[in-house]
């Protein structure tokens, strides 16, 4: 049984003459426990795909199935809770005037769940933060710590799927390593399914089973982790991305 199945997804913004087709025709399926990557250059529509999956965008067409259930444009709270999102910018994704505790309590209040304090403490422990952080404000945390809180917030509703939109690209390498490890641990422990957006091929290869390479609203290639590591990719664009993440290749030397 697939966890996520997407077929012929198309997303556009603005109606009328200014209509912009950002995602044109995208189909893929993700198995439970799998991590599916999305790479591509800025503006190609990666976040838009995630937005449609998460229920943030409404103007999509095609079919989306989550956990065997077809999803319509309007979602029930249960459907929303099934997948949660982690954003790129840890500085913008936490409410600057809410304490960490309040941020984490909020989803529990919305869904009317009990044992709130216990859950908050447990989820903080899960992401490796001390319970005393509940009283802090986001500006008192480092970027990595914030990203952990964001992950905790996503986890507290016990979702099946995490949608990760460049979760480490705003972080230092040392912190990135911590978060990547954390994501790996959680995936094992909670049997989570991930969709991971990144522009760093190394990160993708580290975490994903498969990756879709996106250009201008369409998938140009879907490659497995092995293919990436061995450099056996079909599309030239994928190759460019792979080269890019290895660093600078002096053109003078090449000429």
């Amino acid at each position, binding site marked *: 049984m697939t966890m996520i199945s997407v077929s012929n997804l198309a997303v556009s913004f603005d109606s009328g003459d200014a209509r912009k087709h950002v995602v044109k025709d995208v189909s893929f399926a993700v198995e439970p426990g799998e991590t599916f990557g999305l790479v591509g*250059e*800025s503006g190609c529509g990666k976040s838009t795909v995630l937005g449609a999956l998460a229920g943030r965008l409404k103007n999509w067409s095609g079919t989306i199935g989550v956990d065997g259930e077809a999803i319509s444009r309007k979602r029930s709270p249960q459907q929303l809770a099934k997948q949660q999102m982690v954003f790129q910018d840890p500085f913008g994704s936490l409410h600057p005037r809410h304490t960490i505790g309040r941020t984490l309590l909020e989803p529990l209040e919305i869904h009317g769940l009990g044992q709130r304090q216990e859950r908050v403490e447990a989820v903080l422990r899960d992401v490796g933060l001390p319970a005393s952080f509940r009283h802090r404000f986001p500006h008192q945390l480092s*970027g990595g710590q914030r990203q952990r809180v964001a992950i905790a917030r996503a986890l507290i509703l016990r979702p099946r799927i995490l949608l990760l939109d460049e979760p480490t690209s705003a972080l*230092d*390498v*040392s*912190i*990135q*390593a*911590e978060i*990547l*490890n954390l994501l*790996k641990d959680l995936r094992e422990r909670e049997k989570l399914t991930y969709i991971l957006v990144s*522009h*760093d*091929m*190394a*990160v993708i*290869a*580290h975490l994903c089973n498969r990756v879709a390479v996106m250009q201008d609203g369409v998938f140009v290639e879907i490659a497995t982790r092995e293919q*990436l*590591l061995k450099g056996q990719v079909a599309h030239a664009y994928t190759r*460019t*991305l*792979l*080269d*890019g*993440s*290895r*660093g*600078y*290749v*002096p*053109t*003078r030397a090449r000429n």
Partner: protein
Amino acid sequence: MPDLFQPILSVKNMSVQFPTLSGAVTAVKDISFDVGREKVGIIGESGSGKSTTGRAIMRLQPANARVVAEEMRFEEVDLLGASEADMRAIRGRRISMILQDPKYSLNPVMTVGEQIAETVILHERIGRRQARQRTLAMLERVHIRDPERVFNLYPHEVSGGMGQRIMISMMLISSPSLIIADEPTSALDVTVRQHVLSILDDLIAERDIGLIFISHDLNLVKSFCDRVIIMYAGRIVETLEACRLNHATHPYTRGLLEALPSLDHPKDRLQVLRREASWAEA
């Protein structure tokens, strides 16, 4: 290159402090380094003082910052003793600076041509016409195809990669001898980054000038620079040849390297940096 070892910039024991509510914060502490006609990378985690160092050299630190040093010399100029007017004559003409994101670092309501030409007009006291010619030539030099048209565009009308090339032309048009580039490609896509860097690389080689390249991308610095300075908590923990980065000895540098996921050496788990208090003191 004989003058590679003839430093254009030399900094000795420079510290930068910011006063805050809970006492002064020392952002940069007692750092010393020389830069010759070479590409020197500065890496380090966020907040380690890279940008503060870059700005202190140009004396562009925020008004409340306090910079002290034993010596700060740029070619024949004593940067510590130079007046603001002296500095204005140096900035843009002899030391230039390229900032991270062209979207924010260009004036949104002036055409890009105007902004580039302004630099030459200011420093070389030439007429508008001549400045325009120089600008067009410079734009061509950074591989912009239709300079006449681009001259009259506004920053929001150009792409990120083009914006950064415009930034480069603006900062190199007066042929400075030192360039400080503060994360010049972090806002760009990998594909574009390669192109922009190669243009920068060419120009530097051609004019034989020094570059301070601030970045947090280890792979990039390793492949692009000649030498690397590694900063941690406002201090320089290690300086080495770029090609020898993989053989770094300092545990911090090593930690950074280990923490990096890699396509060539995939690992199941990444090493997590374990910081030691002694690094910040040494």
